């Protein structure tokens, strides 16, 4: 399952939406953090915020179009969501035009913000190319029913084949400076069934998570410890389809005792697919 809004609490079409993502032990995208606590991958929280905004836009546009990932001006990772937590998702649409949606969003757990998205832009594309509009309407009806456990709850389905976030091969690695890696999308990845049924493509959220982890490996190669604290100017310019080999390059721009900044660029067949910057800190959230 690649649906992360378990319940919609409020929906103002084309303007705002409030929803919930419950983190369960059966979630495909739960991983132990540095302290061994099972937490939901940060980029999946971002994905949930984007999906909530997408519901608001799709309803506002009567399911004729759907947003896809485009630009994220800033992702700020300020905390974590552990198994058992309910993540409150709050997405505000700044504007919707014929061809794009612009929004910002906040995810929180027990009143504390765990992730923010700012200056986010999603191109609007014809729904028919990606999903069956009727199926989307039915899914929305389910998750709008309060307490309906048949909604987008992860019911253990993902435990069978967790998504491997690593790249297939490291092409080059210069400790604490730069690295390049390649990953080929095989087409059998479970998330492709939902993202999207009529046009399977690699989600930006998973790509970003992979890049953050590759960057972390690069930074920690000398024994230092860094945690990702966000990303900025992230831009997805093309779809990555099954069979595509994605080459990612990450490069350290700044690295000191407190923080690090990396930039990344991903290409398929030499064409730009995704660019952006990733930020890290040596201090974990809440311990400063």
């Amino acid at each position, binding site marked *: 399952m690649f649906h992360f809004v378990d319940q919609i609490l409020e929906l103002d079409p084309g303007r705002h939406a409030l929803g919930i993502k419950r983190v369960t032990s059966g979630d495909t995208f739960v991983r132990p953090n540095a302290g061994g606590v099972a937490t939901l991958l940060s980029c999946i929280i971002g994905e949930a915020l984007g999906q909530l905004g997408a519901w608001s836009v799709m309803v506002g546009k009567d399911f004729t179009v759907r947003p896809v990932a*485009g630009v994220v001006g800033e992702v700020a990772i300020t905390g974590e969501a552990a198994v058992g937590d309910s993540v409150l998702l709050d997405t505000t649409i700044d504007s919707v*035009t*014929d061809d794009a949606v612009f929004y910002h969003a906040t995810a929180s757990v027990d009143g504390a913000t765990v992730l923010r998205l700012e200056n986010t832009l999603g191109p609007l594309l014809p729904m028919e190319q990606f999903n069956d509009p009727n199926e989307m309407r039915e899914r929305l009806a389910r998750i709008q029913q309060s307490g309906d456990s048949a909604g987008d709850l992860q019911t253990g389905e993902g435990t069978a084949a967790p998504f491997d976030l690593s790249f297939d091969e490291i092409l080059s690695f210069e400790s604490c400076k730069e690295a390049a890696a390649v990953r080929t999308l095989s087409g059998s990845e479970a998330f492709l069934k939902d993202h999207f049924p009529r046009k399977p493509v690699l989600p930006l959220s998973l790509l970003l998570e992979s890049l953050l982890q590759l960057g972390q490996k690069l930074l920690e190669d000398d024994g230092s410890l860094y945690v990702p604290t966000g990303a900025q100017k992230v831009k997805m310019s093309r779809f990555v389809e099954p069979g595509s080999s994605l080459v990612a390059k990450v490069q350290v721009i700044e690295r000191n005792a407190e923080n690090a900044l990396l930039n990344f660029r991903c290409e398929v067949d030499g064409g730009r697919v995704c660019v952006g910057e990733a930020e890290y800190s040596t201090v974990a959230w809440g311990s400063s």
Partner: protein
Amino acid sequence: MNTDTIYPKVREIIADVLAFDVDEIQRDGSLVDDYSAESIDFLDLVYQLEREFKIKIPRGMIEQEARRGVGDEDFEEHGRLTKKGLEHLKEYLSEVPKDRFTPRMQVSLIPTLFTPETFCKIVLREMEGGGQAASD
């Protein structure tokens, strides 16, 4: 106010959106051919300009305004510019070096002509009252 006034800020935004250093952005450079701008970059750029200058840039306005005063059949034929359409476009995009216009060019390739100055003109028009000023 003229485009010189807003060019520094427009240039800075273009450099940021296209991930270039400001110094590398030339006022008459082609955003597509020289700076590898793709459709997502144009969406991003328009949004950033709207935010910065507190304006609304109607989507597709350049092409719509270039067509103003010319019937569809006079402007294009089977998706390609007619001679009259080309002349009209050259006049409208007067900031674009003339050698970049090609006879019977595809209408879908019009965005490849856009330069930083094109966006300065658009911003200025919207700041001064929108499409009305564009027909002057």
